[in-house]
Every structure is written in structure tokens, then in C-alpha cells.
């Protein structure tokens, strides 16, 4: 590879000695929080450089500084050896930096072409700009395997395609350094593989790529070098070939972590949940769930895999009593009301169904309420929480919350702290504590580790497995295939509101599940 570069491009030798981008002593504080502390990093041209770290480790802040969103308190940025000030996005673009954000910055009701051109028009009149861009877009698409229809509206194309538009935007602005922030969070495994092929293609063309992620597998798969961040500091930079996922995880968390879930084989008992032809139609008349049939037995975790937006949310919402549905749902053989007066979260909980919703900040907690208030929600009729017929016993709730917080290792263990003051992982532990400690027959749990640190993921997984081992039924919905594969005893794959089939984790792999998630493979 090195031979080829030196032969192919005369200036490659000179290039490779000088970093494409170098950060020297970058520091940034938000009030008392030191988001970045004295960070130095050298990214060589024509490489893929991974930056890995837990949520809140300061990766995003660092990238925001590079893209001119924040101004660093100290330190400097060197681009191809030149000290460069980046006060705004315009300056970043001029310096050849392109950014693909985790949440795409696209105008939904514009075409692909309009989005690419926006901000980089060639003149005051639009028509010639668009014509020029169309030609360039076709060339770029051919060169980098980035095929998109320039006239499609963003809202009509899938997320994988939208991401390609973001990459095209950067290339159209002649970016030499491409930064991707958590690019695979919304992609199917096949789409992620395609993305990695594109990135490797870009690398071969001499582009420099910075990949920010918390997924160890991606780092191992595509990067040449990886830098690890922890609590605002750069703890290590290593060659990817010379490290291992276990080692990186340890560097990220600061202690040894178990990446595999340690669990005994399941011993399923009687059927707890039976779902028969469950359908859900949303407010716009679109059918979101189509005749879903599944069952979960006691002492078993059924994992529901799928790309976000394929009906998993609606499945949880219908089972949890949040939205109405049609069909039959039986808990321990008894019919559950899906549409009537008694179809709500409260009565579901009374029947022994606990629900840890996917979006904990919207459905799981009230962010401005204190931990103890949040702990009472849904169980506020609990006799132990009442002082009299009218008054609640807040002291009792606080005491109970403190106990739960201790058992679930919620930090800091202060019931009087507002939900929003906890980190993502601790918020999730708070919700889990509330739901699991009620000893439900069935636990519905959606995206249990979304936005949760590796350390906390380990703990949350252990708690879910422990509940299973107590003989409870668990329905787990997750878009993280790793999580589904390691936690589930059985896996159901959803696509377009339907169950594509079921698999046993030992008898399947990411590839097969990925094809089922994309609707290309059905059966079982």
C-alpha cells in the first residue's frame, strides 16, 4: 500500500509526513464542566482516524470546535501544517473540512440537488447553479459509489440515502477532511457496510476521514488509527491493527468491562404473552403494524430487531397501552383490552406489564421533576405511597426511591435531584428501577441502552438477564443488533410493520438478520 502511494503520486511522500489536521492543546469548558482538556491529536492524510469514547467524553465538543460551532478556550488547529482559525462553519468549509452530523442537516422538502447546492451556489440566479451542480453530482456519484437521484425529495428517501447526500454535500464543497459523527446509528448493517465501502473509496482518493463512534466493531473494521477519549481527555492514540476491542473498551471506561453478556441458557416456562394479529393504524391512516403474531414465555427474552421506524415503536406503544390497536393480546391466557376504557398504561401496570419506553426523556421521565416524583409515576396509587385518602406520603416515596437508586446504582443517589441532572445511563437506570422493582410478569423494554455508557450498559444488561432468571417474560426492542444477539433467547425481526420471521441467536448471524431487517429475506 505504501509502495503504491509513493509510486502513484509524487507528492504523497511529502504529504504523508505532514498531518492533514492537527490539534494542539485544545481545551474547552462549559461553566464548571471541562468538556475538552488539553487535547492534542494528529490525523495523517489519506487515513481513517477513529475517535472513540463514551457519551459525554467530549468527542462532539471537539468536533464542534473543528467545525466552528464553538470557540476553544485554548489551543490551536493546524490544517496541512498551517495554523487555522475556525470562527464559523464557513471558515471550516473553506479550510476543506466537511462534516456529516449524527442528525442530518438537510431540508426535508427540498430535492437532493437543492440541498447539495444550498450555501454553495455559483451565482445569484439559481437555475445555472443547479445545472452546474447536477453535472458535478453525477461525476461524484460515479467516482465514489454515491448514487442518489438528484431530483428526489429528502423526505422521500431513506436514511442511508440521506447520509449519502450529506457526504455529497461535503464533497461538492471540495472537502479534503471528512468528519462523520456516529454515522451508523440509523443504518441497517448492509447500509453500514456500504458506507464503509464508500469511506474506504474516499480514503484511496487521498481524503482524510475522521470517524466518531462509540461502536468498537466499526473502529476495528475501518479505521487505521484510533484515539480514545475519556472525560474530556485524550487517553490514548493507537494503531487499530495493534489493539483489540477489549483493550479499547478498557481505555474508554477506565476499567475492565465485559463486552459479552454473561448468561445461562434460558429455561422458558409457560407462555406469558400471546399476541395475535395485532394491527395499529396511525392518525394519518397509515398502517404501522400489520397482523403481528408473537409470544413470550416466562423466563425468556424475546428480542425484536429492526431498523428504527419499522413498527417496533408501535408494537411497544400498543402493548404498553399508549396507542390503540386491533387483534388479540393475552397475558397469562387472559384477554387484554386494546381499545376500550381500560386500555392505558395504568391498567397495563395493574395487570403486571411494566414498560420501559424507548424514548425515556419523552415517555419515561418528566425531565424537570425530581427523581422521587418520577419514581412514583404510574405507581402513584400504591398504598405504600399514601398518607391518607387525599395526601401522598412523600417521605415514603423518597425513602423508597433512595432504596431503588441504591440497588440500581443510580449516581448520584439523591432522590431530590431533577431527572435532567442525571446522565443518560443513570436516567435509564432510574426508569428500570421503577419498572423492574414492581416485579412484573412481563417487562416491555425499548432501546434499553440508547445513549448509555458502556459501563452502564453492562449493568443494565445484567439486570434484564437477572429478571429473566427470576422467571419473568421480557420483550426487548432494540435497533442495536449486537444487543439483540447477546441478550435475546429468541429473535423476531420486524420490517415494514410485519414480523419477517424468528431466529435463534445461536443459529443466525448479523448478515442474515440484516437481510431480514431490510425486507429481503423472509421466513421462519
Amino acid at each position, binding site marked *: 500500500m505504501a509502495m503504491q502511494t509513493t509510486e502513484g503520486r509524487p507528492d504523497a511522500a511529502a504529504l504523508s509526513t505532514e498531518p492533514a489536521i492537527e490539534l494542539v492543546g485544545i481545551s474547552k469548558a462549559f461553566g464548571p464542566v471541562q468538556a475538552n482538556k488539553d487535547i492534542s491529536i494528529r490525523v495523517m492524510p489519506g487515513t481513517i482516524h477513529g475517535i472513540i469514547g463514551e457519551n459525554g467524553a467530549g468527542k*462532539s465538543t471537539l*468536533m*464542534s470546535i473543528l*467545525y466552528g*460551532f464553538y470557540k476553544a478556550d485554548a489551543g490551536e488547529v493546524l490544517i496541512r501544517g498551517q495554523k487555522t482559525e475556525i470562527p*464559523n*462553519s*464557513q471558515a*471550516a*468549509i473553506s479550510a476543506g473540512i466537511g*462534516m456529516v*452530523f*449524527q*442528525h442530518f*442537516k*438537510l*431540508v*426535508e*422538502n*427540498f430535492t437532493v440537488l*437543492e*440541498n447539495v*447546492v*444550498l*450555501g*454553495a*451556489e455559483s*451565482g*445569484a*440566479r*439559481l*437555475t445555472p*447553479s443547479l445545472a452546474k451542480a447536477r453535472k458535478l453530482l453525477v461525476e461524484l456519484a460515479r467516482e465514489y459509489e454515491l448514487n442518489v437521484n438528484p431530483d428526489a425529495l429528502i423526505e422521500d428517501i431513506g436514511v442511508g440515502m440521506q447520509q449519502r447526500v450529506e457526504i455529497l*454535500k461535503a464533497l461538492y464543497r471540495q472537502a479534503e477532511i471528512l468528519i462523520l*459523527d456516529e454515522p451508523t446509528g440509523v443504518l441497517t448493517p448492509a447500509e453500514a457496510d456500504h458506507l464503509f465501502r464508500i469511506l474506504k473509496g474516499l480514503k484511496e482518493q487521498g481524503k482524510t476521514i475522521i470517524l466518531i463512534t462509540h461502536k468498537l466493531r466499526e473502529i476495528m473494521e475501518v479505521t487505521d488509527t484510533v484515539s480514545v477519549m475519556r472525560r474530556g481527555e485524550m487517553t490514548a492514540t493507537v494503531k487499530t491493527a495493534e489493539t483489540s476491542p477489549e483493550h479499547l473498551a478498557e481505555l474508554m471506561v477506565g476499567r475492565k468491562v465485559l463486552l459479552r453478556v454473561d448468561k445461562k441458557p434460558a429455561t422458558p416456562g409457560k407462555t406469558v404473552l400471546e399476541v395475535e394479529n395485532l394491527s395499529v393504524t396511525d392518525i394519518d391512516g397509515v398502517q404501522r403494524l400489520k397482523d403481528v403474531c408473537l409470544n413470550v414465555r416466562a423466563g425468556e427474552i424475546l428480542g425484536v430487531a429492526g431498523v428504527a421506524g419499522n413498527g417496533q415503536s408501535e408494537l411497544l406503544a400498543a402493548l404498553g397501552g399508549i396507542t390503540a390497536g386491533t387483534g388479540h393480546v393475552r397475558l397469562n391466557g387472559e384477554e387484554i383490552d386494546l381499545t376500550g376504557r381500560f386500555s392505558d398504561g395504568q391498567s397495563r401496570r395493574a395487570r403486571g406489564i411494566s414498560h420501559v419506553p424507548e424514548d425515556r426523556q419523552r415517555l419515561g421521565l418528566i425531565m424537570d421533576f425530581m427523581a422521587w416524583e418520577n419514581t412514583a409515576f404510574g405507581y402513584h396509587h400504591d398504598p405504600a405511597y399514601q398518607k391518607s385518602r387525599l395526601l401522598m406520603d412523600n417521605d415514603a416515596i423518597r425513602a423508597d426511591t433512595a432504596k431503588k437508586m441504591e440497588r440500581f446504582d443510580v449516581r448520584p443517589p439523591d432522590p431530590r435531584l431533577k431527572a435532567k441532572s442525571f446522565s443518560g445511563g443513570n436516567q435509564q437506570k432510574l426508569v428500570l428501577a421503577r419498572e423492574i422493582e414492581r416485579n412484573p410478569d412481563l417487562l416491555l423494554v425499548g432501546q434499553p441502552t440508547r445513549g448509555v455508557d458502556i459501563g452502564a450498559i453492562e449493568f443494565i444488561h445484567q439486570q434484564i438477564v437477572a429478571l429473566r432468571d427470576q422467571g419473568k417474560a421480557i420483550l426487548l426492542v432494540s435497533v442495536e443488533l449486537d444487543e439483540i444477539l447477546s441478550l435475546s433467547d429468541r429473535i423476531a425481526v420486524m420490517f415494514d410493520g410485519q414480523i419477517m420471521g424468528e431466529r435463534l441467536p445461536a443459529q443466525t448471524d448479523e448478515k442474515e438478520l440484516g437481510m431480514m431487517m431490510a425486507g429481503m429475506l423472509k421466513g421462519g
Partner: protein
Amino acid sequence: MDFLTLLQILDSTLRLATPLLLACLAGLFSERSGIFDIGLEGKMLIAAFFSAAIAATTGSVWIGLMAGISASVVLALLHGLASITFRGDQLISGVAINFLAAGLTVLISEDWFQQGGRTPQLSGAARFNPITLPLTDTIGAIPVIGPIYTEVLSGHTILVYLALLAVPLTWYVLFRTRFGLRLRAVGENPGAVDTAGVSVTRLRYTAVIIAGILCGLAGAYLSTGFSAGFVKEMSAGRGFIALAALIFAKWRPWQALGATLLFGLLDALGTRYQNIDILGVNLPVQFMQALPYILTVIILAGFVGKAIPPRAGGEPYVKER
């Protein structure tokens, strides 16, 4: 209804639709950029006052027009300051502007002219006078088309023609220029505009200033073209009807023309038929005058269908990732 009556109604439709159209386009620019503007009313009112007052004082309607536009732009900038720079609530800022204009105009005019909140009657060069379009004699001789040309289209003040011209101009700017692309984008997703290296603040201020200018024209038309002087509260809810028309038009310029003409027609009918007997019931004057407003509610409630406002409308832009 005979042909002449119809022509007269259409003629007054055009006159009544003009301030609505200008204000509606003002709202279109502002809201397309993501800044909701319920202060159209206030901006029109203050422009109406200052155009009439300065025209009365200087004797020149053009100087009056400039004064009216300036006053409206000042209020527009105030709205911009509150909602763009200080990221305040756009509805509250709009309401405040309406109150401010209603109070200020009466206060200043009373202090200045002592005529009970009015300005002196304008005449001659102090107001916009009707323009007779060329070739009225030749085209007027043609049956049907002739009378439409002479009675309906000809004989309006320059501001009416300016308003009509503003429609294709707005369309062109919005859909065929770089500025228009950015303007539409900033109302949908300011984050996309910001990360593309374009200043969200500057774009939104530009849009708000354009809205100020158009409201200034609308207000000046009210007091120096449509009427001959300022009367207190003379905008009479037109700013709000323009907003209704904007929703009805789904934030598109040609549809805005259609919507404001419709509201103008309702107004013209209400003014013309003060008393109507329907099935032996005599409808009172008040009912006919209220008709445009009643129909506004009905149209908006039932006939608009799904009107999707610009997605980032009403939200101040805060940089975030």
C-alpha cells in the same frame, strides 16, 4: 346584477385586496424565513399614520411613503431584535408591536394635529392619485374586454400596480434565486443553512426587513391611496386577514394573490350590499360588514386542507449539534 355593477364590484375588490396582498407577501417573506409575524397589522398601521402625517406636512406623497416604510421597518427591526437576536417569543413580540402601533399612532397624531387622532385630509400631490392606463380609448371600445380594462384594471393608484407586480417578483425571488433558496431553507431547517456556512441571523433579518417594506407599502396605500388621510385603527384587522390569506395560500405567492382577491371580493360585497333580503329576512348592515371576517373563519376552518407552515417557524435558532 348587471354588467356594470359587476365591474364596479371587481374594481373595488382590487382596491380592497391591495393592502391585503402587500401585507400577505410581507408575511410570506417573514414566515418563509421562520419568523412568525402577527405584527403585520401594527406595521401597516404605523406606516399608514406616518405616510399620511408626513405627506400632509411636506405636501409630497413620496416623502410620506418613505416615512411610512421607514416607520414600518423600524417596527420590523424591533420584531427581529426580539425574535432573532434575543430569541424571544415571536407571537408575544408581534402582539406587542400591534399594541405599540395602535397606541403610538393615536398619541402622536393627537399631539401633532389635534384632530382626534386623525391627520388632515390629503389632496393633490399629498396623496396617490389614480393612474389611467394607456390606450384606454382604443381598448375601451372593444366589447366586454374594453370595459374590464377601463373600469376594473385602469384608474388605480401606482401602489395597486406595484402590489400586483410584487406577486411574480416574489415568486421569482423565492424559487429562482440563491436568496430564495436560502430563505426557504432557513424557514425549514436553519441548522442546514448554518452548517452550510450561511448566516441564519442575516437571512432572517433580511426577510424581516423585506416584510417591513411591504407592510410599509400596504399602510401607505391605506392612508394615501385608498383613503385621503389617517384615521385611528384604520388597518381594521387587515393584517390578520392577510395572515389568514397567507395560510389559505399555504405560503405561496400566486395563491396569495388568489386568496387576497377572494377576501377583497368578500369585503367589496359587504360594502356594496348593506341590506339584503334573503327569504324575507332582512340581514342587518352589521352582518354584511362582518361577513368577510365570518367567512375568513369558515374558509380557514374548512377549506384550507392541510396547511403545513415552514417547519422551523416560530422557533428561535440556537446552534446545537
